[in-house]
């Protein structure tokens, strides 16, 4: 049960925001970094087979998350349980968590691919992971503020 004076966020509302945040990040990666900037490629010889597996997994995961997130959002709206601050908080949290994970685990720990090739990476890595952390912090802050009874709707 929830503590008095605090509203319990709808579980599907939260999940929908998180999934669509992940999906949005995947779409931004494909549109901005693959199609517009051409920093990322369909296949990077530098990455080898590990990059291939991780790219394929992330592509399937972000698309699946997008479709599932939209269905959950439709259900939330049908029940009139939509609360915009909670939902945007969850979207930013999902996007930030995904971006941070990609920057830290894929780029630095597993080293499957990099933000850009042929340049000094430090600035790019700081910007990439920094953007993820900022998004994540903003999302968590919004979620925390949305839990006060007067904040939403």
């Amino acid at each position, binding site marked *: 049960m929830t503590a008095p004076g605090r509203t319990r966020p709808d579980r599907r509302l939260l999940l929908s925001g998180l999934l669509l945040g992940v999906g949005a990040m995947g779409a931004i990666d494909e549109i901005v970094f693959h199609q517009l900037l051409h920093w990322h490629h369909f296949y990077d010889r530098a990455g080898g087979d590990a990059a*291939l597996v991780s*790219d*394929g997994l992330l592509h*399937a*995961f972000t698309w*699946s998350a997008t479709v599932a997130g939209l269905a959950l959002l439709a259900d939330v709206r049908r*029940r009139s349980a939509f609360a915009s601050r909670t939902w945007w908080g969850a979207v930013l949290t999902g996007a930030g968590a995904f971006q941070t994970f990609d920057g830290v685990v894929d780029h630095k720990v597993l080293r499957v691919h990099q933000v850009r090739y042929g340049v000094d990476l430090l600035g790019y890595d700081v910007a990439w992971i920094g953007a993820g952390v900022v998004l994540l912090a903003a999302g968590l802050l919004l979620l925390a503020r949305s839990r006060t009874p007067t904040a939403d709707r």
Partner: protein
Amino acid sequence: MTGVVLAVLALLALLYVLAAVDVRWSPLRTASWLAGLAVAAAGLTGPLAAAHGDLRAHLAAHLLAGMVAPVLLVLAAPVTLLLRRLPVHRARAVSRLLRSAPAQVLGDPFVAVTLNVGGLWVLHGSGLLGTVAHSPGWHLLVSVHVLLTGWLATAAVLTVDPAPHRRGVVARAVALGAGMAGHDVLAKWLYAHPPAGVTNAEAGARLLYDGGTVVHVVVAALLWRQWYRSRAAVRAAVHTTQPAGV
């Protein structure tokens, strides 16, 4: 060989149309069945199937016969139509078959998706493709196998027809996502390691990747639409039996 395939497909079209005549049956389902068979015919017998050393043509045929056709055939709900048209004792035998242990195993979305994507990996990863590509008989056999396992996987995920052991939407969505991941990785792997003796390998791999994404997203959308609709029914039932909302 082509004649036999076309004759079988034409027979399937005829049987379905005859079965749908006297029962109240959505014309959309009939259209879906006929379109599915037409797409299967294009993938199994058309110029795409004849262009053996061309990986792009091979994978275009695979997309049609192994992915697009199964979705259309599943949406046509052929087993539901069969159960309606059969005499009661025969229909009972069919539903006993659907409830049997082998059907339960094969109809599990994780098993069905693994059979489908695993088969593709064996075909493309083992050099078998080179052998198959130059023998029309083997090529047809493999294409039919791709159609049937694609159909099984799509049916297990979407469960349009009666499915006594149907898994929840999350399990089916995860199975579909896992299949999509396996498919994506295979497409990229083919791009990076094109099989010996084929042309247009890179274009083919891109086609498999992009086309696979479109079909998988459509199947995911159909699956979640089904969930969205079923939630309305669940909620209506809950409201009539319980005073407080859940």
